[in-house]
C-alpha cells in the first residue's frame, strides 16, 4: 500500500515540468526533421523546364512586395526559367529559419533583420534592396498636438519590440511615453487622440483616413534610422552552391521592380488575389504611390532600383552596435550583403 502511494506520489510530482521540457524539445526536433528531407534545393538549370523556386514574404502581400508579384505576372520570372511560388508571411513570419531549412530559396525582410539574423549565427545575405528609404513612421492624429518626435511625451505608443524603438529610446524620445504592444490595427488611434502607433508611411495613414481621422506621419528615417526595406535575402549556402540561380532570380526581381514602379497594374492584380487580409485597390494605389518616393529617392534613376552601398550597411551596423543589440565581433557589414548579382 505504501509503495503504491509512493509511486503515485512520484508520478504526480515529477511529471509536469519534465513533460513540458520534453514536448518543447521533441516538438522542435520533429518539425525540422520533416522539412529537411521534404524540399531538396533545386540544383541546376534544367533547360526548357521551369525551375521551381519559393519566395517567402515577411508580411501579407502588399505594395512593398510589388516587384516579385510583377515579375511573376508579366512573365519575367518565366523568361528566366523560374517557376516562382510566393508565400504569404504574417505576424512574426520566420523568414530566416525557412531559408536555413531550405523551405524557401529567397525571402523578403528589412535590413536590420538581416543584421539580427547574422548576429544569431544565421548565414543570411541581402542580394537586393528594393526600398531605399525605410517607410517606418510614427502615426499620430492631426488633433493630437504632436508635430515632432519631441511632442510624443505623455502619449501612449503602440509599437513592437523592434530596433527602431531602441533607437528612438536612445535619442531620449520615449522618456515619458508609455509603450504598449501594437496589434496590427489602427483602431486605438482612431478611438483616442493620445494614442500614437508604429506604421508604414504607405499603408496605415490611409486606413486611419478611411475611418474618418486626419493623421500625420513622423518619419523615423528623419531621425537617422534608415535601414533598407523590402530587402531580398537568400542563404549564403545557396549563393555558394548555385550562384546562377541567385543571379537569375535577382535580375528578374530587379526587372520586376522596375516594371512595377513604371506601371503596377499587373502586379497589383496578383497582390489583390493573394492577400486575404482585406487589401483593397485603393490601399494598393496609395501604397504604390508612396513606394515610388521611397524606392527612388532624390531622383534616383530607375535603372539603379535595388542597389545597396557598403556605407549604408556600415552605418546600420554601427547604430545597432551602439544600441547594444548586436555584437560587432559577430557581424561584419561586408558579410551582410552582396552586390555581385546587381552588376
Amino acid at each position, binding site marked *: 500500500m505504501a509503495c503504491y502511494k509512493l509511486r503515485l506520489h512520484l508520478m504526480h510530482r515529477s511529471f509536469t515540468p519534465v513533460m513540458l521540457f520534453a514536448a518543447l524539445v521533441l516538438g522542435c526536433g520533429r518539425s525540422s526533421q520533416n522539412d529537411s528531407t521534404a524540399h531538396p534545393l533545386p540544383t541546376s538549370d534544367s533547360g526548357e523546364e521551369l525551375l521551381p523556386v519559393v519566395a517567402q514574404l515577411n508580411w501579407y502581400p502588399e505594395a512593398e512586395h510589388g516587384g516579385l508579384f510583377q515579375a511573376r505576372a508579366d512573365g519575367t520570372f518565366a523568361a528566366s526559367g523560374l517557376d516562382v511560388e510566393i508565400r504569404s508571411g504574417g505576424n512574426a513570419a520566420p523568414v530566416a529559419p525557412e531559408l536555413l531549412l531550405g523551405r524557401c530559396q529567397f525571402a523578403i525582410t528589412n535590413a536590420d533583420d538581416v543584421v*539580427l539574423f547574422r548576429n544569431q549565427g544565421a548565414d543570411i545575405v541581402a542580394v537586393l534592396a528594393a526600398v531605399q528609404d525605410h517607410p517606418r513612421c510614427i502615426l499620430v492624429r492631426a488633433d493630437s498636438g504632436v508635430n515632432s518626435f519631441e511632442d510624443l511625451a505623455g502619449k501612449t505608443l503602440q509599437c*513592437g519590440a523592434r530596433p527602431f524603438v531602441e533607437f528612438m529610446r536612445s535619442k531620449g524620445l520615449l522618456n515619458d511615453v508609455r509603450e504598449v504592444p501594437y496589434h496590427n490595427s489602427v483602431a486605438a488611434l482612431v478611438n483616442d487622440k493620445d494614442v500614437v502607433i508604429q506604421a508604414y508611411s504607405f499603408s496605415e495613414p490611409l486606413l486611419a483616413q478611411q475611418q474618418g481621422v486626419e493623421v500625420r506621419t513622423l518619419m523615423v528615417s528623419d531621425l537617422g534610422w534608415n535601414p533598407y526595406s523590402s530587402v531580398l535575402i537568400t542563404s549564403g549556402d545557396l549563393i555558394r552552391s548555385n550562384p546562377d540561380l541567385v543571379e537569375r532570380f535577382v535580375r528578374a526581381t530587379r526587372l520586376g521592380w522596375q516594371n512595377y514602379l513604371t506601371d503596377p497594374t499587373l502586379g497589383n492584380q496578383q497582390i489583390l488575389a493573394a492577400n486575404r487580409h482585406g487589401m483593397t485597390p485603393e490601399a494598393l494605389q496609395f501604397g504604390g504611390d508612396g513606394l515610388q518616393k521611397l524606392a527612388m529617392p532624390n531622383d534616383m534613376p530607375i535603372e539603379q532600383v535595388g542597389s545597396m552601398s557598403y556605407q549604408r550597411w556600415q552605418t546600420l551596423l554601427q547604430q545597432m552596435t551602439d544600441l547594444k543589440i548586436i555584437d560587432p565581433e559577430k557581424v561584419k557589414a561586408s558579410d551582410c550583403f552582396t552586390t555581385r548579382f546587381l552588376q
Partner: protein
Amino acid sequence: MTSPIIMLSYRNRIAHYFVQSLFVVAVAIVVICLWVAIIWKFELPPILLPSPLQVLAAARREYVALGLGIWSTGIAAIVGLAWSIALGATLAIIFSQSRLIRRAFFPYVIFLQTVPIVAIAPLLITWSGYQFRTVVIVTVIICLFPIVSNVTAGLMTIHSELDDLLRLYGAGRIKRLTKLRIPLAVPYLVLGTRISSGLAVIGAIVAEFFVGNGADYAGLGTLMTRWQGMQRTDALIAAVFASTLVGLLLFGTVQFISATVLRRWTRFIN
C-alpha cells in the same frame, strides 16, 4: 485507521525523496542529450534551436532582466491565484447552497473556462487599461474554473452519517456548513489550486503579451515578445525556462502549504 503515508518513518521519506530526485535528474539528462543530438544530427543553426549551453549563456547575460521578470510575473500570478481562491471558494459556497443558483450560474463558470483568452485580452485592455490590474484579471479568468468546480464538488459530497450526527445535536444549516462541509472541502480546494497554480503563470504571461511595457514593469511575457522581435531564440528559450520555474515555485508553494498548514485536512491527497 491511519494513512500509510503517516506511518512512513522520517528515514524512509528521505530515501524516497532521493529516489524521486534521481529519476528527475535522469530524465533531465536524457532530454538534454536528445536536445544536443537533434542539433548535431540536423545541423540546426542557433536561431532555430540553440544548444543548452547557449541558452545557459543567454540566461547568464540576461539574469537581471530574467530575475525581475520572474519577480513581476510571479507576483501577478500569485495575486491572480489568491483572487481566484477567494472568489472561487465564495462562489462554490454560494453554489452549494441552492440547486437553482447552481443550475443558473454554472454554465457561465464553464464559459470562463472555454473563452479563448487570447481573443478577449485586447478587449480587457480596452476596458481595464494597460496595467497590472488587467494582468491579474486575465489570470483570474484562467484560474477560476478549476477552483470553483473542485470546491463545489467537495462541498456537495454527501457525508450522510456525519450530517445526521450533527443534525442530531441540533446543528443548523450554517453550523453544518462551517463545521462539516467546508473542512471536508479543503482537500478539493487544494486540488483545484494545484491545477490553477500552473494556469496562473500562463495567464499572467499571456496577459503580458498584450499589456507589455504599459504596465510599468517587464514580466516574462514582455521579455519573450521583446526577444522574439530581436530574433534572440536563446534568450527566448531561457525565458521559457524561467516561466516554468515560476510555475514550479507556485506549484511547490501550494504543495508545501497543503502538506504543512493544511495537513490536518489534506493528508489524504498528499
